[in-house]
């Protein structure tokens, strides 16, 4: 579209499974009749011969010959409809829904895709008014805008709209400042990608205990009302206020991600941090007495029992190489290095061991040690970087020397090399067993809860 605005005709070519997505997106960006050509899906990894077949074949959506369709996209004169300018108006949604029976309204909310598939607490005016008592902010104050991912349009929402979705999630008014803080970041919990993203939300500061969040036994599991409903509210906000969560259009994860229900919402167990280990929000520049939410983005979690092998930090090195989506294996282009991501959620028993038996006086020391000492096997390195393998074969250093390393050696380029993406560490758990969870999550940002009280 940028190029069309420069007066240059364009012909975008897309694989067929994304028909809904691209047409919806073109409409939202103001070019509802953009001339797409589709080819069979997928294209990635197809050999030259198959690519040729697709080009010489027909568009699976329109049935027209692909090459002819591309030429026509560039040369067929614009229709009167295509020449239209001005605005496309979309009517604002009605303020109220109903009146109808509660059962019928539940069915309507589900049918309209306003839920996460589970029954919700119906957001009556009374319930929303009660929720709004949880903040001193005015109901019509704009909180933020949110979009499912950068190319998509951003939707704007108010305090009242966040309250409606908080009621639906089953939250209590005392949780509302935490939910507003999350909403104020404008970060969606339903990032649209075929890779099935997940999110994590961590709460620090006095609010954890004020609203009885769980940071102890089973903190990442169900059964705590605050953890469950705050996490759920973020999903509903992302769906209803952020334009996300529509399968095929703004929810494209090929397999989906079960973390999308609750976004791994928990409180850090600040009381059990080893001496010298700061809470996450303090690491990010907040004062200990401030209440803060911090958000993370990633895909998956591995659970690990601290039995054998030992020590834990050595196990963590190997564990971190299992996340091939996050940069341990995914390299877009030679010369554009892709630092991997890692976040560790440690039971206090594990944190204590790492401090007392292994000498990591701070979280930062552990993070830096892992960053400095984690390397890929030669197999993984060359499999992920075919362009660098070619350079090695051409004699370009240091790749050429690395290619001569013996079998089983590690390539001496750190997997985690970006100081702006440190390995993040948090402590939670009930100390029934020295377990920890490792995830390929990146820190995305933090927001003050106190501002929304």
């Amino acid at each position, binding site marked *: 579209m940028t190029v069309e605005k420069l007066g240059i005709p364009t012909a975008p070519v897309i694989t067929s499974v*994304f028909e809904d997505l691209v047409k919806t997106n073109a409409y939202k960006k103001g070019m509802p009749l953009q001339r797409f050509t589709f080819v069979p899906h997928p294209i*990635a990894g197809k050999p030259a011969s198959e690519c040729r077949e697709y080009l010489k074949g027909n568009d699976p959506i329109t049935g027209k010959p692909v*090459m002819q369709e591309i030429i026509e996209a560039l040369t067929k004169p614009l229709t009167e409809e295509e020449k239209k300018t001005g605005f496309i108006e*979309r009517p604002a*949604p009605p303020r109220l*829904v109903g009146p*109808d029976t509660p059962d019928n309204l539940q069915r309507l*909310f589900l049918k309209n895709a306003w839920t996460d598939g589970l029954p919700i607490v119906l957001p009556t005016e009374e319930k*929303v008014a009660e929720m709004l008592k949880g903040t001193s902010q005015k109901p019509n104050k704009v909180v933020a805008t949110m979009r499912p991912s950068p190319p998509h349009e951003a*939707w704007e929402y108010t305090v009242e709209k966040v309250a409606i979705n908080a009621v639906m999630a089953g939250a209590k008014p005392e949780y509302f400042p935490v939910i507003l803080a999350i909403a104020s970041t404008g970060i969606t919990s339903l990032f649209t990608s075929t890779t099935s993203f997940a999110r994590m939300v961590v709460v620090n500061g006095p609010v954890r205990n004020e609203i009885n969040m769980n940071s102890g036994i089973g903190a990442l599991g169900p059964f705590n009302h605050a953890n469950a409903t705050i996490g759920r509210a973020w999903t509903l906000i992302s769906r209803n206020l952020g334009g996300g969560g529509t399968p095929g259009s703004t929810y494209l994860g090929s397999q989906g991600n079960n973390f999308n229900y609750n976004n791994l919402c928990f409180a850090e167990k600040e009381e059990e941090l080893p001496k010298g280990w700061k809470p996450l929000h303090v690491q990010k520049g907040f004062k200990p007495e401030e209440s803060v939410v911090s958000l993370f983005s990633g895909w998956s979690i591995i659970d690990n029992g601290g039995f054998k092998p030992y020590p834990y930090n050595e196990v963590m090195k190997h564990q971190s190489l299992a996340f091939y989506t996050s940069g341990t294996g995914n390299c877009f282009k030679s010369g554009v290095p892709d630092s991997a991501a890692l976040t560790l959620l440690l039971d206090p028993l594990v944190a204590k061991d790492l401090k007392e038996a292994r000498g990591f006086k701070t979280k930062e020391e552990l993070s830096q040690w892992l960053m400095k000492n984690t390397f890929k096997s030669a197999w993984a390195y060359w499999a992920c970087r075919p362009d660098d393998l070619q350079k090695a074969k051409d004699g370009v250093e240091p790749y050429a020397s690395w290619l001569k390393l013996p079998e089983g050696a590690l390539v001496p380029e750190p997997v985690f090399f970006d100081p702006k993406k440190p390995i993040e560490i948090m402590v939670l758990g009930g100390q029934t067993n020295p377990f920890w969870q490792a995830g390929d999550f990146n820190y995305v940002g933090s927001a003050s809860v106190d501002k929304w009280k």
Partner: protein
Amino acid sequence: MKKGMNYLLIGVFLVASLLVVYPSQAEEAKITALNPLGSAPLIRRVSMAPRLDTLAGKTVYIVNVMFPLTDQFLVEMQKAFAERYPQVNWVLRDKRGTYFDDDPKLWAEIKEKGNAMIMGIGH
């Protein structure tokens, strides 16, 4: 008379049965709820560029958006078009960065030196 009385009794029984079944539904309370949806922004139409009368003698850029492992398709596209339309100048270029990144320099080059653009391809 007796027959008529029987019919009357059956009718009364049927009406009474209906009154037992339907009142519970008619009396169920109805409520309103607030709409949870946010506000979608106004859409400003983007004018499509005028189309070319012919591609003969023109320069058409084929731009690779840089989704992983899809380079081959664009390479084959350039070859296929060059074979079929040799009177057109087909220029294959990679967009900067990943498929999320903008590339204003490339767009400026296309504006200056090109007449049309084909762009592909994800996945």
